[in-house]
């Protein structure tokens, strides 16, 4: 036999590249401060929500101080229109808001991911039909749609989750579809088809794993939008007013003249919480998306110049 390849194991050490998932995220957090900060914010609020029942200073529903009492040593963020401690209310509200956000996003991701994959992979009539449905939903103004649906279904947390999911899955579907269409053309997919593998197998084992990071990025961004939408729906009185969420807190505050009373503590901290979570999600989601986009890497011709080194002597040993 002529010189068959004998590759010594030593010649082929792994190149440090992000071949595995864990490596990818770790590098991401190291490289981009915004990603780390965003993740930190999200983790903080999630943890806070989890331990809220144990560390709430007061009840989140029963009165514990005067109406619109200003912040004090006992009540760090004051009290709202019903004399309920603001801090406790915020923590309790956070639980529900985050649950609504995550739940709605989960449903949106499942529907959107499914539609995107089926549409992108099979193409043809399936794609055309699904995309027309997607376009319909994309075109309808979000809040108008939400108002109509909430009116028909009635205000309840479950319905809010469903409404948000219906509004959000289209974005995910489009993004996933585009990615699937490009992955589908790759040679290893064609090769696996030529092996005789079924479509189900190819989607499950080759296409879906490729979607992982993109789905995660999209999910994180969708969470931000979901939480924001929940606030909006609550504010528009489309949600069950008896439930405490960040949105209903705001809604109550406006309804019951917090503004004219000058009780900023009933509004601003709530707004800051919402804004922080949204910003955290955006930072993390954007960072993941950027990291996935190869074209954003530094190109050859950029404004920063390459460097000159002066050699102390000559030859390769003189550096």
């Amino acid at each position, binding site marked *: 036999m002529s010189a*068959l390849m004998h590759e010594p194991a030593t010649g082929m050490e792994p190149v440090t590249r992000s071949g595995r998932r864990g490596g990818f995220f770790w590098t991401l957090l190291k490289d981009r401060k915004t990603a780390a900060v965003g993740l930190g914010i999200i983790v903080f609020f999630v943890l806070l929500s989890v331990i809220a029942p144990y560390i709430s200073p007061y009840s989140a529903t029963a009165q514990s101080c005067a109406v619109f009492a200003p912040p004090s040593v006992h009540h760090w963020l004051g009290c709202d229109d019903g004399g309920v401690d603001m801090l406790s209310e915020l923590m309790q509200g956070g639980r529900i808001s985050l649950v609504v956000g995550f739940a709605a996003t989960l449903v949106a991701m499942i529907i959107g991911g499914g539609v995107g994959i089926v549409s992108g992979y099979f193409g043809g009539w399936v794609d055309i039909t699904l995309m027309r449905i997607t376009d319909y939903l994309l075109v309808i103004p979000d809040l108008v749609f939400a108002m109509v649906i909430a009116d028909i279904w009635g205000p309840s947390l479950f319905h809010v989750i469903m409404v948000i999911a219906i509004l959000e899955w289209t974005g995910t579907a489009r993004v996933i579809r585009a990615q699937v269409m490009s992955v589908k053309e790759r040679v290893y997919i064609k090769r696996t088809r030529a092996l005789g593998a079924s479509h189900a197998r190819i989607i499950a084992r080759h296409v879906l794993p490729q979607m992982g990071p993109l789905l995660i990025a999209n999910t994180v961004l969708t969470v931000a939008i979901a939480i924001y939408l929940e606030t909006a729906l609550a504010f528009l009185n489309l949600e069950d007013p008896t439930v405490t969420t960040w949105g209903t807190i705001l809604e109550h505050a406006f309804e019951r003249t917090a503004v004219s009373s000058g009780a900023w503590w009933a509004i601003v901290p709530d707004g800051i919480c919402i804004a922080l979570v949204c910003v955290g999600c955006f930072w993390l989601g954007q960072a993941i998306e950027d990291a996935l986009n190869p074209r954003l890497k530094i190109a050859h011709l950029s404004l920063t110049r390459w460097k000159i080194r002066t050699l102390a002597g000559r030859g390769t040993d003189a550096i």
Partner: protein
Amino acid sequence: MSSLLEVRDLHVWFEPPHAAPVHAVQGVSFELEAGERFGLVGESGCGKTTTILALMGLLPPNASLAGEVRLDGTSILAGGEDSVRPHRWKDIAMVFQGAMNALNPVKKVGWQIAEPMAFHGVAEGKAALKRAGELLELVGIPARSAQRYPHEFSGGMRQRASIAMALACAPKILLADEPTTALDVMVQAQILELLTRLSGELGLAVILVTHDLPVVAQMCSRAAVMYAGEIAETGPMDALYHAPAHPYTRLLFAATPDLYGADAVASIPGSPPRLDRDITGCPFRPRCDVPIERCARDHPALLQVETAHLAACLRAGKRGGLRAEPGADEAVRLGQ
């Protein structure tokens, strides 16, 4: 007796994030005369593309460079980007790898050729477009095609258009990076014939960078074979084929099938060394079929085999004798 282009001891390092620096080009030296066709041959990762990108100063921000490049006696890299920019495209131009896919799809071809002319004060406006048409004729495309967009051109025509673009400011040196790799064999022949003709008619020096040995054998008079960031052997094409002094050159030719040749074709076992680590001894030793004991310790420099024929091998040298000091730079007098 200075040459048109003198490259002395060129080094390029890349510093990728989260990884060790890569020493991509390790002390490359060669010369180029006016009107000469010179081949730079090697496989992927040997540093040939990085070398010519360095000549144009087209390196990414994480690159650093050392050594000297003299164009007509003037050092062009010493001052970094600022010293190389006036020469870029005016004295040295390049046809990039896959250039036919790098044309701007939303601009007419004529406009793209004319674009660099204004910057270098060659021509402007209507005069530039007229010159663009002339350049297209020169590369074998009717001048009126200047009004077309790249997608209306075939692959071969786009490659010719890229060459016309490189000639926009009448450079003295043309760097061609794998100009025919993605093209059909007949179109490849057309492009090579074009480059040869241009070199003759315009007195244009061409550095042809490729992995394809027969292409270099056909078109170039002299060549350098690169391995692991260094020049392994350089000399006239005839000597490289008929009397190679470096085992890599010999094995590379042996790995290339010939149309009518009956010799067996053989792979070179193993793979090139990593350039992010220091290499002790000769970088080719693990794959060499005739190593001697010293090869493991001493790193060979380019040694003279014959006039104008040099090889970085401890076994090379005049009349086959072993050379004494591999690090002795004074033993090397390039070119002449």
